[in-house]
């Protein structure tokens, strides 16, 4: 489903060249729940950005659903992001001026669904994350866990092929984090592929496969030493 081969990402300024990803290769099959871990600056977020078509890659190939997406123009990338990928961010990234209903509506409008279809999808996804009674609330009126649930509802409303989660419980207490993880597990069980960038041990355990990234390169499994770091920190 997701197939990256020898992907490199280089950030250049006038004086500095930073290799964020080097010869990065990864295949994720449909229905997998993959966690991506690694130390700070290892390239996790760069991988997430490239996987989510939020950034261009410098070299290599990236296929999504069998289609090479590494050379798409901005409009096509926006469409693929909108139709195939759901994003869950660490800081929820809800739009503060919009209520819950309108927040979930944002990607659906860009998709071009008509109003009744959008309404159906919004209500279903918000009900699914257990916030059916909060549709007219603003994000600021919800707890962190509830806001993350709204973000999940927003990610799921468009029925994407896979979810990209960036530290989805990073801003939550343990109880709320568990509830969000339960929800993600449930979504994965229902068939949605999930790739989750995290440095939390509890999350790594939830994933069926763990990817460790160091110095912009990938290796399957999490080294023991790193697991100890994660447990400690």
């Amino acid at each position: 489903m997701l197939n990256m081969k020898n992907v490199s990402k280089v950030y250049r300024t006038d004086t500095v060249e930073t290799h964020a990803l080097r010869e990065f290769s990864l295949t994720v099959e449909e229905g997998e729940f993959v966690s991506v871990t690694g130390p700070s600056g290892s390239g996790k977020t760069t991988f997430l950005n490239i996987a989510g078509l939020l950034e261009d890659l410098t070299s290599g190939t990236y296929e999504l659903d069998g289609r090479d997406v590494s050379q798409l123009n901005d409009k096509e990338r926006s469409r693929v992001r909108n139709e195939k990928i759901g994003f869950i961010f660490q800081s929820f990234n809800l739009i503060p001026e919009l209520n819950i209903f309108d927040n979930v509506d944002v990607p659906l409008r860009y998709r071009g669904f008509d109003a009744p279809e959008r309404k159906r999808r919004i209500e279903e996804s918000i009900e699914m994350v257990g916030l059916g009674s909060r549709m007219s609330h603003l994000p600021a009126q919800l707890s962190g866990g509830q806001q993350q649930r709204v973000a999940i509802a927003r990610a799921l409303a468009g029925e994407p092929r896979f979810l990209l989660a960036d530290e989805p419980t990073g801003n939550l207490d343990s109880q709320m984090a568990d509830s969000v993880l339960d929800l993600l597990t449930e979504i994965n069980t229902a068939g949605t592929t999930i790739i989750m960038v995290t440095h939390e041990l509890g999350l790594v355990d939830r994933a069926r496969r763990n990817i460790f990234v160091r110095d912009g390169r990938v290796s399957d499994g999490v080294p023991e030493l790193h697991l100890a770091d994660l447990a400690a920190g």
Partner: protein
Amino acid sequence: MEFGPVWRAMMRNKGGYFLIAVQIAVTMAVMVNAFAIMQERSFKMGRPSGLDEANTFALVSVGFKPEMDSKALISEDLDLLRNTPGVINAVATNSYPLRQGGWSEGLHREPGVGKSVSSSAIYFVDEHGLETFGLNLIDGRNFSPEQVSWDKDSPDPWPATVIITQALGEDLYPDHEGSYVGKTFWFDDDNPANIVGVVERLQAPWPSWTGVERSMLVPLRRESNDVRYVVRTEPGYRDQLMLQVEESLANSSKDRIIRQVATVDEARKLAYLGDAAMIKILTFVISLLTAITGLGIVGLASFSVARRTRQIGIRRALGATRPAIVRYFMLENFLVSSIGIVSGAVLAVGLNMFMVQAFSLTPLAWYVVPVAMIILWIVGQVAVAGPARKASGISPAIATRSI
């Protein structure tokens, strides 16, 4: 279109949008009424005087010998002028349209003190006046040479025949239908005058006078050392003949000087100097105000983009294309502009109604408000285009960055 979400988001941050809407409303009200004033002034400046302006000039002969035979000199001068090649005709007169100085009289429909019903500018001319001025005689006839008399000061009695303008006829006889030729009115309580002709148009010398279209030709030559001549030339000969005529008249008599040689075009410029200045000032004010409003919109939109950088990145991450981000800001501006423009339109019409009543201004033409609305909508959209384009360039990757 994201009308609903954009509107609801705006309603949660009303302050800045409200101020811009007020600014647009004030701009609209001022723009519309300033334009109405400009339009009125422009119309006033564009009115034809009735003269063949492009081919007419005037000059004044000032005699400085008290004992000089001014009657003979005027006759010689007129002969000289009329026989100059390129001159169509010439006349001695007291004034001409746009000169801003002249003679006026109260007119009566019946004899008697205090029965004035109208007033008119008076041009003393001979039978050559009609052709010299280039007037369009629409009814009756010209003066015959026998009807033209000489007088030294104020006419006493007034000549018994006159040629009036159509506008004067309508003012003197508002209920009369048909020809004014043959009708009689009175000067000075007891001097009757018979209308022998009607011209389509001949403005009074004072362009700002409310009765500017009311004037008449009176068949009288005034015997004076100071004489004003009006000369009409063949097309294209005016400027050349002005110099030639000035020199010829100066050479024909050493007992006078020739001065105030000026075209009617120059007289028009002088007469409407204030109106032209007003139009320039109002154009500047409108332009300045519109520019300030545009800059205000640019400022608000730029601030809005800067404040919502992350939000724009999130929208991009969720699938918004660059044009979709541009459309968002365009729509936001359209909504706030529309509030300002519609409020401004109401304010503009109200202000105009007040000005019509208080300053006798002409009511707004029907198209002024819609045109101003379209202009301000365009200004708003153009002003927001830059910040909106900037917003569309924000990377979606910003969504994954830590705050």
